[in-house]
């Protein structure tokens, strides 16, 4: 993989931050966009212009072709069986909320349980906590590393559990959940399996048929695509029978004053109102871009960057890393000064002055601090456009992190 060549695809890498060359290590939050995605978005506004599925003129036909073309790209990207199984959403959060609302109102009963785990992102947990029925949330215990093990999933399953909702990759520690094996366990018990793919789709090849998941969501912006768009995948047998959460134009075929509503078939019945067309097209372009580079190479390179970083800091005893053994590009850590932990936000602000973007806090996984026994962490997340030279600069900056230097940035 020619990283320097790849970096030319990302115009934003030419900018500076705090008068230093930008080193962007916040890729788990969102990723930078290649020129081809930006051009696709611009082309919609400068050339295509029309709405989708509505017009009888050439422009609108061109939009339809590209819009439904993007659906087929997405279908192929996660290897769904039918394009009808791909519903456009505003991203993983909306997908998880829609699935929760649909299942709660149309399938689950008061007292049914949803099984999830403590390292989950807020969007896998909060919709169930706030659901319209009394859904009991149960948590798979994590092992001492913060990992979900198959053994613990087996132990946690019981007759009350009707839905299991898990991320394929944790956004804090980066561990991969054994989804395929969990799916077998779930289906043997007639349990619906929902998988949050926000942190997996950017890094590993997804095959929803092989994983045999019932629902799967992802966000385009985590994999070089636009913000505000993603997909909800559902097995056809579910999407065919589920009533949508939203109603409006484009999702119905006809309705009358007596309240008879004839909805369109999936996926259009789930796509009321004008979709973010430019973002859907941009997502399709991003998927093609990622596939061209290849998820296997992307993942291998991220792991290589992480190993390189870990090797460089192995003698720096003031850096505490919480996820050394997870095979990903995420490093979650804290910095100590004379045996006392420097608050994560102070470290992140110091790194900012060196042009380095990292995330500090709890990373939307608010139950995880109980497992890690720290109230916040710093997260550096690498992607395929990052370089070893950037990591060298990062390590040099980390050598300078002391409480005093973290306060010095204010003077």
């Amino acid at each position, binding site marked *: 993989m020619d990283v320097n060549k790849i970096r030319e695809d990302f115009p934003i890498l030419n900018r500076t931050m705090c008068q230093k060359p930008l080193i962007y290590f916040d890729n788990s939050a969102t990723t930078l966009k290649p020129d081809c995605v930006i051009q696709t978005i611009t082309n919609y506004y400068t050339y295509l212009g029309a709405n989708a599925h509505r017009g009888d003129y050439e422009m609108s036909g061109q939009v339809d072709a590209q819009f439904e073309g993007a659906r087929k790209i997405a279908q192929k990207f996660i290897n769904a069986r039918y394009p009808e199984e791909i519903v456009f959403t505003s991203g993983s959060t909306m997908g998880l909320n829609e699935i929760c609302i649909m299942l709660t109102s149309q399938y689950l009963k008061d007292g049914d349980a949803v099984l999830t785990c403590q390292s989950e992102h807020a969007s896998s947990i909060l919709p169930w906590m706030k659901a319209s029925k009394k859904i009991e949330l149960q948590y798979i215990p994590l092992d001492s590393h913060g990992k979900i093990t198959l053994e613990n999933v087996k132990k946690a399953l019981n007759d009350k559990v009707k839905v299991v909702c898990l991320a394929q990759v944790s956004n804090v520690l980066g561990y991969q959940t054994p989804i395929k094996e969990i799916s077998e366990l779930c289906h043997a018990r007639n349990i619906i399996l929902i998988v949050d793919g926000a942190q997996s789709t950017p890094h590993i090849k997804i095959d929803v048929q092989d994983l045999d998941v019932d629902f799967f969501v992802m966000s385009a912006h985590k994999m070089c695509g636009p913000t505000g768009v993603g997909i909800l995948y559902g097995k056809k047998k579910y999407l065919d029978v589920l009533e949508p959460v939203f109603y409006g134009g484009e999702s119905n075929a006809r309705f009358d004053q007596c309240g008879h509503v004839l909805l369109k078939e999936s996926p259009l019945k789930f796509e009321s109102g004008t979709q973010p067309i430019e973002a859907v097209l941009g997502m399709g372009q991003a998927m093609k871009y990622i596939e061209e580079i290849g998820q296997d190479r992307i993942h291998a390179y991220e792991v290589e960057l992480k190993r390189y970083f870990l090797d460089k800091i192995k003698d720096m005893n003031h850096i505490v890393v919480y996820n050394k053994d997870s095979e990903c590009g995420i490093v979650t850590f804290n910095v100590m000064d004379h045996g006392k932990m420097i608050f994560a936000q*102070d470290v992140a602000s110091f790194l900012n002055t060196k042009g380095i973007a990292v995330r500090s806090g709890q990373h*939307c996984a608010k139950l995880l601090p109980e497992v890690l026994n720290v109230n916040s962490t710093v997260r550096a997340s690498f992607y395929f456009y990052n370089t070893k030279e950037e990591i060298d600069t990062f390590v040099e900056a980390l050598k300078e992190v002391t409480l005093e230097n973290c306060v010095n940035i204010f003077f």
Partner: protein
Amino acid sequence: MSIDASLLREIIMDHYEYPRNKSLTDQSGYASVHMASDSCIDDITVQSKIENGIIQDVRFDGVACTIATSSTSIMSELMQGKSIEEAKEIISNYFNMIDQKKYDEDLLEEAIAFQNVGKQANRIHCATIGWKAMDQMIRESEGEKDESR
């Protein structure tokens, strides 16, 4: 770094490592504000006892960064024994300083250590979290007084 800057840094470090009034009380007569919803990282509670128009005591506790902890610690010392009018004057001067507007340095004492916090725009919240809690409690104490009239 100038001598001034290094002095100011020492003030922040000192209040972070040895925060003053950092423990909450169960005693009666204290108002309390939990500041946790604005950011997902700083989580502090500030308490104050305001009697007869005088701030008798200010306490705080919680988990927060250097700037949030030290600025709240300094605020808690500055407020002790001040009348509500004096406290309001100090607070408005502090917010002016943070916003890079004109302010009276003498009123702020050690709090001038945060004069450059705006250089890191995302940290302005940290430097004001405890002060906003105090401001809120003062307003609420005045509201109660108005209602009792």
